[in-house]
């Protein structure tokens, strides 16, 4: 009993971890299933069919390609715009700064269904046909605020003495920016870009309002598939995304550890 009390947090923590990871285990497991019929809900038999023929499900690979393209473009545009805005908000004082901060905050506080529908009313009113362009406009809109917030935090945490030190050491303002400020803010920009990519790639609700009838992103494909029967290939994609993310992060940490060990070894020598 005393043991239980002492380790309560650990036990609850591990149970919640299990709760978080369970769906991914199920997704992985069912990517090796060979279902009877169109729905992949019950385990029947082990099979590598879906892994060997990932594009066999009609439209899946096309939608995946479209989602990747949209996510890359949206992330790129919103990272450039968001980083510029983050520097303006993080380093300068000017009239309307508080209002601008609020305007940046609002899209993050707006439910997706509201954002999607209001954009749709605009596009209808202006007579803009739904399609890739409207999807991109929407995705840049809801990712740019996240980029601004992420980069702004990094800019604000920067020690202003560093830039002054650069000026003191004969760097002109633009040299100080590119040699000192930018390299130090870069991790924040990378994090913002990654976040923008992930948000765009994953979005269904806003996209659904602004995609029109014929443009199908990957989340829309999954949604459509869920109504008609779920192809196993969806699970293959889900599994690849999960383990891909783990691998990228793990690889990054490994490199980080290598660098640390390397420099420690040099220190010892």
């Amino acid at each position: 009993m005393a043991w239980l009390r002492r380790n309560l947090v650990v036990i609850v923590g591990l149970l919640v971890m299990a709760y978080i990871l369970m769906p991914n285990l199920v997704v992985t497991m069912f990517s090796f299933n060979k279902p009877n019929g169109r729905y992949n809900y019950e385990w029947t038999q082990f099979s590598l069919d879906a892994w060997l023929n990932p594009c066999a499900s009609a439209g899946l690979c096309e939608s995946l390609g479209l989602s990747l393209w949209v996510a890359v473009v949206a992330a790129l545009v919103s990272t450039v715009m968001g980083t510029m805005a983050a520097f303006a908000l993080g380093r300068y004082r000017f009239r309307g700064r508080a209002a601008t901060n609020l305007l940046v905050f609002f899209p993050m506080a707006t439910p997706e269904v509201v954002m999607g529908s209001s954009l749709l009313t605009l596009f209808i009113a202006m007579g803009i046909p739904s399609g890739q362009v409207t999807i991109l406009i929407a995705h840049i809109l809801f990712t740019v605020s996240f980029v601004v917030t992420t980069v702004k935090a990094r800019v604000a945490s920067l020690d202003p003495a560093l830039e002054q030190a650069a000026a003191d050491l004969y760097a002109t303002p633009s040299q100080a920016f590119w040699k000192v400020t930018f390299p130090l803010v870069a991790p924040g920009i990378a994090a913002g870009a990654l976040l923008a990519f992930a948000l765009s790639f994953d979005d269904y609700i806003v996209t659904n309002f602004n995609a029109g009838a014929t443009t199908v992103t990957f989340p829309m494909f999954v949604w459509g598939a869920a109504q008609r029967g779920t192809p196993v290939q969806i699970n293959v994609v889900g599994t690849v995304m999960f383990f891909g993310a783990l691998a990228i992060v793990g690889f990054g940490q490994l490199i980080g550890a290598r660098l640390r060990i390397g420099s420690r070894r040099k220190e010892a020598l």
Partner: protein
Amino acid sequence: MAALTQAAVGAEAPVSRPRRRGGLVPLVLLAPALLWLVVFFVVPTISLASQSLQTGDIDNGFTLTWNFAVYAEAMARYWPQFLRSMVYAASATLGTLVLGYPLAWFIAHRSGRWKNVLLVLVVAPFFTNFLIRTLAWQIILTDNGPVTGFFRATGLTAVLQAMGLTDNDSLLGSQFAVICGLVYNFLPFMVLPLYTILERLDVRLLDAAGDLYANGWQTFWRVIWPLSLPGVVSGTLLTFIPAAGDYINSRLLGNTQTVMIGQVIDAQFLRVLDYPIAAALSFILMAAIIVLVAGYVRAAGTEELV
């Protein structure tokens, strides 16, 4: 007064945050993002308000008639779904807090390597499309699955039924499943801000509280909880706002009795094509969230969210 304090501080200690006047530079830097936000966020919001006050239909077009009655009509027809959305979102927020707090604490107090592994494991699922993961919940909660079997065997199903969270002895297609899905979906948005705060918490404070005669529970309520409030506030906002507008979970895990307001807006806009009602509902949802959030932030006394 504030200017004076800043000047006094700036006079000696190097200013912690340079607030320089840059003339046109900040405006040039802001221009693209600001333009985008105004054209595609502010204007659409006005367009939404305007749409809600128009009358007409999709074939003959809409005209602005300042028909405020549409708001009363929208609420009269859809208040149950509206209220349900708020209740589900609030329950889900409470659920993420109750589950997320111990997890955040657990992660924050592991040693360096484990901390990183656990954080990655919390975030990594979210690189898998959330529709796929929500569909996985259909499999997990399926009628002849082990989870449903466990709930039935331990009498938990009966408890849920008594609480009105399920209609029969299945788990799928119930309020329980919808809230479960919402909690699952937004858990990381609660865990990450909490983790950030709890990781920075000085553990010596716990020793100090113990030294001053506080037991574990008192230490939590009087020291840890108040210090973690900023994390709690941002976590609850990050959960509540998207949960209130979500309809994926209620569509995939619920039944016709669990319809949320987002589902109604989606249907009115994209299938019924009754734009004024749909726009009015969107507007009400946004206004309700702004009012709730503003009141909550004021009550919590933290305004440093922006």
